[in-house]
């Protein structure tokens, strides 16, 4: 496969054609903040945390869905980028209801960790405080829409790793919701195989195992990676 050479943060980097900027940066030891990206499944560019600057382009581009090209000059750090990332985080917090201290994911949450690492110390936007539901109808799992950031990781693992196709997105904008099947209580879903992959994939406290108390929900993403690798690289022991 053809190799492309480019510059990321003044560092010469080469990557195979078809690699994303995010992938190339990570291979080169340069980290770019992400939320909707999950190793092992395809990217959709939903959260915009991974925005980078490209020399010669006035627009900011998501590193997770932009492919490398010959001679690209990419910057992953700048005041402008930091400002945007903080703003994105603030909007995520303002959009729904996050009460970290009482949250099942407190201390193990990607959104919370990201907010700390990006220096988000307050939210400048008005909290929308929408009235949202908690769905505890499933025998093993729960979904709290108050904490969902609509990253769609759950949807993607459900369709593309498990192949159940239970999780979907309905509605648009502020009305967008993660639903099960045709928008019915999760416990009534006929397609959910209760595999728990969405639980492992969720970056926040939106999806959890039933009975979890504050700060108790820890996830093991290596399980997802294992499945993907096993499938792609034919590592099944059969």
């Amino acid at each position, binding site marked *: 496969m053809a190799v492309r050479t480019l510059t990321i943060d003044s560092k010469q980097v080469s990557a195979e054609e078809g690699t994303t900027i995010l992938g190339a940066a990570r291979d080169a030891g340069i980290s770019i903040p992400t939320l909707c990206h999950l190793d092992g499944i395809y990217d959709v560019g939903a959260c915009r945390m991974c925005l980078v600057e490209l020399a010669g382009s006035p627009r900011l581009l998501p590193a997770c869905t932009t492919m490398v090209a010959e001679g690209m000059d990419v910057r992953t750090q700048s005041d402008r980028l930091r400002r945007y990332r903080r703003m994105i985080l603030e909007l995520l917090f303002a959009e729904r209801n996050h*009460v970290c201290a009482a949250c099942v994911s407190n201390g193990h949450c990607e959104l919370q960790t990201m907010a700390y690492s990006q220096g988000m110390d307050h939210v400048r936007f008005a909290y929308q405080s929408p009235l949202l539901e908690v769905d505890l109808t499933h025998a093993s799992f729960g979904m709290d829409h108050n904490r969902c950031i609509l990253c769609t990781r759950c949807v993607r693992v459900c369709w593309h790793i498990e192949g159940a196709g239970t999780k979907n997105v309905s509605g648009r904008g502020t009305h967008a919701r993660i639903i099960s099947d045709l928008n019915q209580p999760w416990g009534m879903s006929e397609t959910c195989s209760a595999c728990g992959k969405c639980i492992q994939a969720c970056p926040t406290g939106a999806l959890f195992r039933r009975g979890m108390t504050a700060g108790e929900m820890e996830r093991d993403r290596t399980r997802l990676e294992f499945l993907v690798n096993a499938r792609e690289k034919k590592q099944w022991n059969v």
Partner: protein
Amino acid sequence: MAQRIVIDPVTRIEGHAKITIQLDDDGQVTDAQFHVVEFRGFERFCEGRPLWEMPGLTARTCGICPVSHLLASARAGDEILAVQVPPAADKLRRLMNLAQMVQSHALSFFHLSAPDFLMGWDAPVEKRNVFGLLGTRPELVRAGVRLRQFGQEVIEILGGKKVHPSWAVPGGVRSGLTLAGRERIRTGLPEAFQTARLALRLFKDLAGSLNREIQIFGNFPSLFLGLVGPDGEWEHHGGRLRFMDSSGSILVDQLDPQNYREYIGEAVQSSSYLKSPYFKPLGPEEGMYRVGPLARLNVCKSMGTPEADVELKEFRKHSNGAVTSSFLYHHARLIEILTSLERIERMLEDPELHSDHLRADAGVNRLRGVGVSEAPRGTLFHDYEVDRDGVVTKVNLVIATGQNNLAMNRTVAQIAKHYVKGPHVPEAMLNRVEHGIRNFDPCLSCSTHALGQMPLVIRLVGPDGTVLDERRRD
């Protein structure tokens, strides 16, 4: 012209309070109110949440006694799961509650209350506080600080740094006690005992010269409520409810906390945002009851530990029936510190504390559950209703400060009657009214936690019921 004197805020009580003293045409005190501005949204805020998040959620909402909410909430959860909590978990919860008694009572006595009676009621305000006391009795202040630290350390050993917001959970607790943790607790005990005994001696020596305070700082008949054990002994977690009147007769005994509503009504006070619970069979007026250290010492048959039982005997010499002076909450608090330490010491011998069977698992088996625990300030009820999936549909919290609200009003009125002569308020009275409230160690921010600021209206009402003046803050 009837007048109102408003004292605000009561210093040194965590949170804010407002006191209204009603004078008649002759400038005589007719009535007084201690308004607790409760933000009522809190109970609503819990509705729709998973049952399992309630201990963490309620503990975080009350910054003053999070441990008490944690434990009462977990107990309500136990009831809904309908499980038998593993014995070790129950013991560890009790251990934490005892530590909470020690640390909270130490704060109330040494930091908040002792400056008043040690520095003198009329000492200037900048002296009449813990810093003033530090100047004259540094050893006492330090001992108090260390005692509080001991209680906090036990809590930390069990619940982790920063008190894990959800150490106690429906069905049990999340982590146990290590042998190293036990040794740390053991090491701190001798000094803690010493301080408890020192404070008791100090208070009893002073009591002779505090007769006036004992007589007028909220001395009146009322009912008393507290948990008791199966033999009527002092109880703080688990156990059943007992109501006693001021003659010392038991009105209700061994009441299952699940049925508290049969005996406790909740009146909504127009002058306060706090609900005022009362003993139902006697109605809102006659049914006024007190909770907390004084009440617990009145209702119990014995403390159940040797040193504290000797102290209880002496304490009871204050009266033939129940001890009715609210000023003696302080004394009761010190005896409770002592019994808590004795109980902690005894518990440390129990090998079961180190068991790793700490959590019973179950789904939702009942749609309602009441969790009761004795918070340092008094009996705390968490009453939850859930749907079949465990989503909370209704929450009722009955907190100590609410239950003592009517008695606090009475206390303020009694003190004011002795000091207010005419339209002017002597500085001496302000301090004493403040202290009258401090007897009860109210947990204001618990009942007033402001998610947003509650607009406030202050009304002047004359003897004929007309509004004479109105001041509002929006």
